[in-house]
């Protein structure tokens, strides 16, 4: 059984099939790439998996303690609870909250049902709060953001914001992490650094990672398998080498060799 099984997934917007009849599967601890030309439906695909959009057709199933659980029609917060977390193509941080607060929001489920203790300000409130803070700092450290933990998110540079989004997603303790163009707006040096980080967190947190990226150096370097979308349809899949050679992929995505 796969960790995540997507069968015949379709999403129509009016007459437009943004995702059409796509079937994929994800295994544990895999690093999978999702590429395709602009408007191919990659982000839409993420949106379907994470519950932002409801699929028009097809099924999404996740392996949980109760066997395969269907994710169609489950709300995003519940899906997150089941172990799927993501970042956004257009950065969506909680801009007026501090860096560490951004992370702590993502950890809020951990604190359990302590609204009561919080409102009465019992000692337990301060304890869990301190614990959460410590944990959040640890995560920030991995991405070299601990130094600016108390800075407002809006004041971060673009690259820092992208990294913070990853930390925030990690803080929800996901099984699968979806990254939408994590390296966009970064220069090659910064991209190389990020590439290493992604590989590292996969190891450290035993994650399955799916990433959308147009920077081929990153994709080819770390993805074990790659899916290619065009006009909402899956047109190729395989290892980096296989995909790179595929004539359809070259035509639609990479462009002819100059």
């Amino acid at each position: 059984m796969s960790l995540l099984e997507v069968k015949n997934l379709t999403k129509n917007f009016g007459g437009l099939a943004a995702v059409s009849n796509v079937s994929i599967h994800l295994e544990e601890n895999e690093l999978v790439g999702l590429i395709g030309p602009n408007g191919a439906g990659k982000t839409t695909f993420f949106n379907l998996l994470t519950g932002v959009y409801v699929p028009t057709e097809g099924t999404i199933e996740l392996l949980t303690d109760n066997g395969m659980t269907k994710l169609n029609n489950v709300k995003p917060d519940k899906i997150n609870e089941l172990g799927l977390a993501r970042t956004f193509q257009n950065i969506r941080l909680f801009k007026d909250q501090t860096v560490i607060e951004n992370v702590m929001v993502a950890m809020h489920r951990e604190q359990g049902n302590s609204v009561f203790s919080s409102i009465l300000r019992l000692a337990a409130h301060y304890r869990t709060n301190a614990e959460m803070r410590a944990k959040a700092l640890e995560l920030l450290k991995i991405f070299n953001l601990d130094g600016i933990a108390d800075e407002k998110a809006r004041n971060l540079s673009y690259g820092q914001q992208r990294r913070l989004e990853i930390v925030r997603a990690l803080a929800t303790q996901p099984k699968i992490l979806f990254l939408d163009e994590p390296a966009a707006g970064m220069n090659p040096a910064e991209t190389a650094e990020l590439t290493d980080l992604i590989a590292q967190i996969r190891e450290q947190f035993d994650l399955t990672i799916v990433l959308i990226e147009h920077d081929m150096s990153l994709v080819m370097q770390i993805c074990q398998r790659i899916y290619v979308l065009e006009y909402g349809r899956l047109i190729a899949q395989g290892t980096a080498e296989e995909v790179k050679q595929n004539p359809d992929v070259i035509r639609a995505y990479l462009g002819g060799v100059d």
Partner: protein
Amino acid sequence: MQLFMQQLVNGISLGSIYALIALGYTMVYGTIRLINFAHGDIYMVGAFFGYFLVSVLNVNVFLAMLLAGVFCAILGVVIEKVAYKPLRKSTRVAALITAIGVSYFLQNVMIYFLGPEVRAFPSTIPVMPFRVFGIVINMKQVFVFVTTVILMIVLNAIVKHTKMGKAMRAVAVDSEAAELMGIDVNRVISFTFALGSALAGVAGVLVGVYYNSISATMGTTPGLKAFVAAVVGGVGSIPGAMIGGYLIGLLETIVTFMGGSMYKDAAVYALLIVILLIKPSGLFGKNVKEKV
């Protein structure tokens, strides 16, 4: 049945009034996303201006309507420059509070100088009731209805088909990007205010003539109802504002007809809520989709 038809006529006449005010509301909202709480008060100032033209200077009503439109256009632009422009970059709620301040200001300045009493607007348009299939319709009703429809069509044409209209929509979405297109944002906003306020001025005189009653607080209730009408129709949508106005006018009339006159205001708000629940951006409102 005939009585019911008569009530429909009543509803449409009342709806015309709401629609007329709602048009200006929705214009301004459509361009700068500001609930211009002072709109109802500009309408009131227009009514008073017309009143003085007609009763003191003996100006013809139609001319008075035009002049009130011009006067309110200027007033609207001045208000925008003085009170709203400095707040363009701040939160919407801050701008809303300013609008409320302007509304209080206009209303209380009028009370201070002219007193809080109601005044009778000299009735200058003949009533001339006539019957169609046994339903009594009078000239004033026809006049108000026709004016509203014409204004709606003209406005819609401006927004949809002129360059200025396109610029207004661009400014509404992203004023910085609009500047990069070579659009003079200040001018567009001034134009919007001028147009919206001119409409309010015309409406003020028209309503003065229609009901022959004006007062410093006359803007509050219709202002609120017109706002509801604009929301029901979908704020920013010009046909929406008109339909919203008519819907509310008809609803009030029908509820009264069915014997629920004491609940007519509640019915209007209930309608508003129901429509928003079914269509969160109003009947004609564009659901601004957010790409995730």
